[in-house]
Each structure stands twice: as structure tokens, then as C-alpha cells.
């Protein structure tokens, strides 16, 4: 049951729907994700299982998916049958982890239409169910993950103990197996140098926070991922509500910082935003890092309501579409680093120009 390649082509050609800038608070929260870890009771965990056993897991799970309405009309991709670039495309779209992306073992991913729901098979755990939503929607993301999990649980025998819950390969996931996270954009707090204080207070209430791109001391694009840390001793609802509560506070702090930026440093802020826009709009060679950082500034401008910068989804989408594998897929062949930079610049210009035409502003602004 392998998906026809045109399905995959269609997937690559369109930006991930969770980047479309819809959903509550999408000016600050890019997306919400919920992940559930599950294992089959009678098979050793992935890293201790033989390839034949993992083939068995793939077969059992595929069978169960046929009976799960949440996964209707989805496609199954087998990692062993995919090229390195195509596997990397899935990593860049946040559908697949780096571990699953290596392609060496019988692993797969099932992707439901619109990429809102997906299931990694034979990653660190046999099943990693994931739901993605645009903007700040933890309750919604949880309820669709919960439903899909119930559907699979009717036909699969999950490793579970009454006392300690779902049994996972790593004890950090034991219990609910839940990891709920928000991808949050905090440029004003970074500009006002208040970010460290905020990150520290997030960690103090038992949540985890890290930069999306780059190492923690050198966060690119002012994008942070906040997630729950513990999975035992609290219910899924508790974890989701905890994340929701803390995220709300972070959103308010960022909103106040943005107000101060505009009040106290309007010219400097607008200047930063428009310079970033100008670089993106007219560059001829640009690195992935630079795109991420410039997009962050433009994203801030869009959120502040500066006219003429185009809609939010355009900058969101650039973050993924300009990554190396997406670029090479769009180009239709391998590119050297230098060629990528040139092709990336062209793609960025074209997309911003198209957005310009749609808003009827013209290229002369």
C-alpha cells in the first residue's frame, strides 16, 4: 500500500497547511502540535527489534489505519523507498524526525490529507501520532489526537500498564506519552532583551523551551518551541491546560513588548522591518539562515499591522519552502550550496512579488 508518487509531488508543491497563518493568536503562535508515543505490546521497542519484526509492525499498523476514520484518504510513505532529499523534505515539514529520516530500517509515515494528522511508524517508539494546527489551538490539537489514538487503540494492542500508563522506549515519555508544543514567535522580547527572563520563568514552571533553529545561545528567527516536560502524574488534559496557561502569559508579555516597541521606537522598528523586507525582495543570493532571520523581522511587521508587507502565510511558508530539500525538490535536481543560495533568492523574490501583485500594491513601493 504505497502511495503513488504524484501524491507526494502534490504534497511537496503546496506549503504545509499549518503555516497558513489562520487560527487564534497566529500573529504570535505559528502552530500547535500534539504528539502521542505508543508501542505494540508484544514487539520489542524499535531499536531492539529485528527488521522482520518492524515489518510486522508496519503491516499491523497499516491494517489498523484502514479501520480508522481519522486517517481516511491518507498516504503511506516507506522510508526505505524514498530518496534522501524526499525524506529530508518530510523533516523540513516537521512531519518526520531526524531519526525517522535516516531511511535505513523498515520505517514509514502515514499522512492524512492536509497534513493535520500523521503517524510515524517505527521511530523511537513503534507509533508516534502527531496532530498539527495553525495558530494557538492546543485543545483542538489534543482532541483530534485523542480521537485518532482511540481509533487505533481498538485494533492495536498497546503496551500499557495500569500503574505507569503507556510504556515507551525512553522513560521520559512513560505515562501519557504526550508531548504538546507551541511554536511561538517572540521578536519583541528578544529585541528588548527580556527573552532570557521569560525563558527562565517558562522552565521554572516545569515546561521545556528551546529555539526552533540553531543552538540555544544562538536562536535564529526568534522562534521558540515550548512543550510539556513530564508525562507521569498528570493527565493529558492537565498537560494541555498547563501549556495553554503558560503560553497565554507568554503571548501577553510579547504583546506588551510589541506595544512598547511601537510606542518608544516606532521609527527604528519600522526601519528594521522594511530593511529586512527590502533584502528579501531584491536579494540575488541568500543563505537559509539569513532568510529565517529576515522573515522574523517581516513577520513582526505584518503582525504590527504595517501596510504593504503582504499576508502572514507568505512569510510563514518561506521558512519551510527555502530549506535545502524543498529548494532542490522545487528545482528538480541537486544543487550545490552556491546554486542553492541563488535559487533560494529567486524563489523568495518571486513569492514576495506574487503576494505584492495580489494585494495590488505593485513592485514599485
Amino acid at each position, binding site marked *: 500500500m504505497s502511495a503513488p508518487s504524484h501524491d507526494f509531488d502534490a504534497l511537496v508543491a503546496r506549503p504545509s497547511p499549518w503555516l497558513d497563518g489562520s487560527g487564534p493568536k497566529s500573529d504570535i503562535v505559528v502552530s500547535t502540535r500534539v504528539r502521542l508515543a505508543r*508501542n505494540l*505490546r*508484544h*514487539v*520489542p*521497542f524499535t*531499536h*531492539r527489534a529485528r527488521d*522482520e519484526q518492524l515489518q*510486522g509492525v508496519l*503491516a*499491523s499498523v497499516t*491494517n*489498523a489505519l484502514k*479501520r480508522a476514520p481519522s486517517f481516511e484518504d491518507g498516504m503511506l510513505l516507506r522510508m526505505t523507498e524514498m530518496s534522501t532529499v524526499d525524506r529530508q523534505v518530510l523533516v523540513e515539514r516537521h512531519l518526520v524526525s531526524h531519526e525517522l529520516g535516516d531511511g535505513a530500517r523498515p520505517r514509514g509515515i502515514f499522512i492524512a490529507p492536509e497534513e493535520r494528522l500523521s503517524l510515524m511508524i517505527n521511530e*523511537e517508539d513503534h507509533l508516534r501520532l502527531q496532530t498539527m494546527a495553525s495558530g494557538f489551538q492546543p485543545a483542538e490539537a489534543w482532541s483530534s489526537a*485523542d480521537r485518532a*489514538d*482511540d*481509533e487505533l*487503540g*481498538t*485494533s*492495536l*494492542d*498497546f*503496551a*500499557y*500498564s*495500569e*500503574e*505507569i*500508563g*503507556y*510504556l*515507551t*522506549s*525512553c*522513560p*521520559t515519555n*512513560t*505515562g*501519557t506519552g*504526550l508531548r504538546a508544543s507551541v511554536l511561538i514567535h517572540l521578536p519583541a522580547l528578544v529585541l528588548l532583551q527580556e527573552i532570557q527572563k521569560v525563558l*527562565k520563568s517558562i*522552565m*521554572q*514552571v*516545569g515546561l*521545556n523551551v528551546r529555539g526552533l533553529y540553531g543552538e540555544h545561545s544562538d536562536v535564529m528567527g526568534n522562534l521558540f518551541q515550548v512543550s510539556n*516536560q*513530564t*508525562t*507521569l*502524574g*498528570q*493527565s*493529558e488534559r*492537565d498537560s494541555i491546560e498547563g501549556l495553554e496557561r503558560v503560553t497565554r502569559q507568554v503571548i501577553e508579555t510579547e504583546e506588551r513588548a510589541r506595544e512598547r516597541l511601537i510606542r518608544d521606537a516606532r521609527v527604528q522598528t519600522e526601519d528594521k522591518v522594511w530593511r529586512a523586507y527590502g533584502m528579501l525582495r531584491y536579494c540575488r543570493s541568500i543563505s537559509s539562515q539569513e532568510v529565517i532571520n529576515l522573515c522574523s523581522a517581516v513577520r513582526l511587521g505584518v503582525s504590527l499591522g504595517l501596510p504593504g508587507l503582504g499576508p502572514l502565510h507568505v512569510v510563514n511558508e518561506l521558512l519551510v519552502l527555502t530549506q535545502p530539500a524543498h529548494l532542490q525538490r522545487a528545482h528538480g535536481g541537486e544543487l550545490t550550496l552556491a546554486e542553492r543560495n541563488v535559487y533560494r533568492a529567486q524563489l523568495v523574490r518571486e513569492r514576495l512579488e506574487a503576494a505584492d501583485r495580489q494585494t495590488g500594491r505593485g513592485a514599485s513601493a
Partner: protein
Amino acid sequence: MLCQICGKNPATVHFTEIHDNKMSEIHVCDRCAEEKGLQTPQAKHKFDIADLIAGMVDSVTSTEEERVGHVQCPRCGLLYSAFKETGRLGCAECYQAFQFQLRPLLRRIHGDTRHKGKSPARDGEGVSRSRQMQRLYDELQRAVEREEFERAAEIRDEIKQIEIEDRAVQTETEKPR
């Protein structure tokens, strides 16, 4: 004393924790403490699992440590010492085999050892039936792999029988009243 994470620099940051009346200590260098976000006690969660387990070594004597290291999962054969190195368990049964070692570890990671979340969707005849089907399919596949074709044929017949029964039940319920 050297840092328990990098093993190179002298340990200058010391944490002591008491759980269930047992004391355990972590000794790390400034750099690792900074890197692992260890400035606040709550930030201990940032610890890599393998580091966490390594941090617990001090709380047991070396002979006890050796004995514990030889505890083995009867199902998948994983040694506790191997788990300590990778931080990954081998199968569901490892949780049972290593329960005495895992309990303090789980408490340390999560601050609790009791599951409060959902349980697998189950109960009801339909559910147990599809579970049964799943098991049969798995068995069938294993039989084919082992080239035990007689057994495979038996399982196949069993699956067919259940499907016939299922259909009968379905038409029964669909009949107009």
C-alpha cells in the same frame, strides 16, 4: 571530583536531592551546568536521560551497582547496565524486570510514578474482536515467515470464520424492525 557529564572539568556545581528519604547527588562543572540549564532546581528536567541515570550512580554502592547492572529482562535480554548507557528500554517487559530501579528514576524525571491519563480504548465486544483479529493477522504473518504453512492455513480459516460471523451480525442489526 570530575564533572559527571563531561568527565573533563572539575565539578564545581553540586546538587543534592532527597526523594523517599534517599539522598542522591549530582556533581557537574560550570559549563555543563550552564549548558544543561542547571541553575535552577526545576531545570533538572533538561538533563539528558543518560546523564540522569549516571547522576544516580552515587546513591548506590559499587557492589550493589554491579549486581543491579546484571539484572536482565527475561523477554528481550536487555541488561540494566545497557539501559544505563543508552537510556532506552528494550521492550514493554523491561518495565517489569527493572521496576525497582525504574521507580526512583521515573520519580526523578516526572516527580511522580503514577499514571493519571487515559487508558487504551477497549472493552465492548467489537473492540476485543478487532484485537483478536489483529492477533490472528500477526500470527498468520509469523507463520508464513517461518514457512509453517499448515498453521498458516488454520489461522486463515479462523480469520474467515470470524469475518463470516461478523457479517452475519451486521445483517442482523441492519434488518428493519
